[in-house]
């Protein structure tokens, strides 16, 4: 059991959790993740660690409510506990001094981008972060990213904040105006990582991406998280989650991510109906 110390809504359907996990807080490195189970019926949800405070013994997770489990998690209050938190899992991000590094976070992917930006900066890189969101209300962690970066470029699909357009546009502009950065790290929706990687491949910029495929155990046992990287089969949970963006078969990954969509929607819908019924019952005077 791991106690939730804080649960804050930081954007529409996006919560920031501070969770007591002293040992993980000490051990985790940038790029690693945990697997969380909300209750005893819960599925195992892989979530990248967004931050950690070893002194306080906490880790920070930023989670978007997209299905039953994550919606259920959003209802938890400080003082409640998660049934299980296991980690740190996965290999840490390879951090070295390369010069100028562009860190791209798309949507909820800004959360896992945060420790990467921190680590790259700590290693002596000039860090330019590009943050992308559909709209201003969905933009998260801008302040934290500003602290972790030398420069931040914000872009939204609808232009409500920063530049209008996708992160790929911002990256293309950056390359056109200031030349090629030495390294790009991208994390976010799979199509975003795909198009970032296509662009950087054209320019020959080394690019790493952080993948979050469907997985069960997170220790290399089930193989559910397998991805094709340079025509080799890799398990994202132990071989990754970071891979060379120029070698990942993103189209395959997009299909694999969608496999349980129908079932997940069914479970989510049933939960919402049950919640509505319960609140109706409570609202009706007896």
């Amino acid at each position, binding site marked *: 059991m791991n106690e939730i110390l804080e649960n804050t809504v930081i954007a529409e359907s996006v919560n920031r959790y501070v969770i007591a996990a002293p040992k993980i807080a000490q051990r985790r490195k940038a790029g690693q993740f945990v697997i969380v189970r909300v209750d005893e*019926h819960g599925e195992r949800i892989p979530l990248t660690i967004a931050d950690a405070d070893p002194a306080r013994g906490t880790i920070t997770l930023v989670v978007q409510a997209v299905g039953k489990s994550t919606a259920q998690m959003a209802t938890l209050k400080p003082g409640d506990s998660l049934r299980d938190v*296991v980690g740190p899992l996965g290999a840490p991000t390879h951090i070295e001094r390369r010069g100028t590094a562009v860190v791209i976070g798309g949507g909820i992917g800004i959360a896992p981008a945060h420790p990467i930006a921190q680590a790259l900066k700590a290693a002596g890189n000039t860090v330019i972060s590009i943050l992308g969101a559909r709209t201003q209300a969905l933009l998260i962690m801008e302040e934290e990213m500003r602290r972790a970066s030398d420069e931040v470029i914000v872009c939204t699909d609808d232009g409500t904040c920063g530049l209008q357009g996708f992160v790929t546009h911002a990256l293309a502009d950056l390359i056109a105006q200031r030349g090629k950065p030495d390294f790009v790290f991208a994390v976010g929706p799979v199509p975003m990582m795909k198009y970032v990687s296509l662009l950087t491949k054209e320019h020959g910029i080394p690019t790493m991406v952080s993948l979050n495929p469907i997985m069960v155990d997170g220790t290399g046992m*089930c193989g559910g998280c397998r991805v094709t990287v340079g025509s080799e089969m890799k398990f994202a949970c*132990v071989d990754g989650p970071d891979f060379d963006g120029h070698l990942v078969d993103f189209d395959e990954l997009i299909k694999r991510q*969608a*496999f349980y969509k129908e*079932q997940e929607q069914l479970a989510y819908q049933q939960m919402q109906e049950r919640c509505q019924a319960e609140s109706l019952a409570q609202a009706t005077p007896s």
Partner: protein
Amino acid sequence: MSDQLDPHEIERLRSLKPKERMQIPRQQMPEQAPDVRRANFREVPHGLPAMTAIVEANRCLACKKPACVEGCPVGIDIPGFVALIVQGDFEGAVRKVKETNMLPAICGRVCPQEAQCEALCVVGKRGDPVAIGRLERFVADWEREHGLVEPPPTGAPTGKSVGVVGSGPAGLTAAIDLRRLGHEVTIYEALHAPGGVLMYGIPEFRLPKSIVSAEVEVVQRMGVQIEYNYVIGQIETVDELLERHDAVFLGTGAGLPWFMNLPGENLNGVYSANEYLTRCNLMRAYEFPYSDTPIAASERVAVIGGGNVAMDVARTAARLGAKEVYLIYRRSEAEMPARIEEIHHAREEGIVFKLLHNPVRYIGDECGRVCQVECIRMELGEPDASGRRRPVPVEGSQFTIDVDTVVVAIGNGPNPLVPKTTAGLDVDARHGTVKTNLETMRTSKRGVFAGGDIAIGAATVILAMGHGRKAARSIDHFLRTGVWDVEKVE
């Protein structure tokens, strides 16, 4: 299950002459009918009623030099416990079993008795062997159902402490024996539940999870601490464990699924057996959406492989509602590594055996879900290294089968997480196993012992238990003497 004893009948049976005993047929264990059990996850056999167990026990000839014991990897005093069943002393019988095997409810269900104790049973030379496994299961169930399970006494505290990595059959057995010898034990388990393969791998209908939980509870009552969600190699290394433990036992199992590197293997609906079974057993996907973990809804499933795991997967798929389940195996039935009982149960449940077939590639639909498996027919050639005749493809014999789910059950390698992160631990380059002296269960690294699948590659629950037991003795020797380089531990 009937518990009623008939004292007169017990006496009559005891007075039988050996010749008359030989006339008693092997007693059948009642089980769910195939068409009923195909629609549920409850255990298939119901266990023996008490009087039936006594009748079966009377078939034992109480050999002076019991061959059956030779066939038991842990050397249970089989004639001893069977003789107590004959007397109706079930409590005595289960105590006798537990002198050597602390987990009889599990072994009675999942041991391949037909290849071990029962294979050597003298009665079996002229007919059917004594149903030793069923009797073992009977006494263990009887004890649990009567609330008589008592943790064995623990030894006087030695002040030494052992870290056990993994709570599967090897780790649990080692932990029990180490507590009996008075050492402190902490088990580190990567998953959120104990039992390892007993929990995530073997299905509910073959080994109810309540039984695994009951056995683990006994281990905990002996004072063994279990740390869940604790992945050694990630949260801590073996060297760090050695800072607070005097020895470490590695029982991390065969947690690395093999694939065949075929085109289309990453299509949706293609699973490893580990994933399919873990979703269903550990995560209870068969209760979805009551439990949150989904599993593919399937009409037509192909299972690749011919071992016990393949049978477990095929029978699980049937229970999840698949109309057609094909078991695709490249050799013939005679070479199948699965237990006869499992093959028999699978056939009864309507699993279609595609023997001497091998998958060549998987074909997907526009959404990326598998929709066909292309197979090639095989024939048996010259014997290979395993002594079995090598399957050879028949040129031009390819054909396709329509499927919506494929489960690859061709075996597992040792999980590399611990070997990869432990300095000074020699690993077999070809098999990925931790190099282990199988007499002493000692590895190349001082203070580190190993057993079960991590030491020998995927094998059986009982072999893992045997390793756990041997390791406990060897660890005890090491902790008492401090001597590491030994060839044998008495």
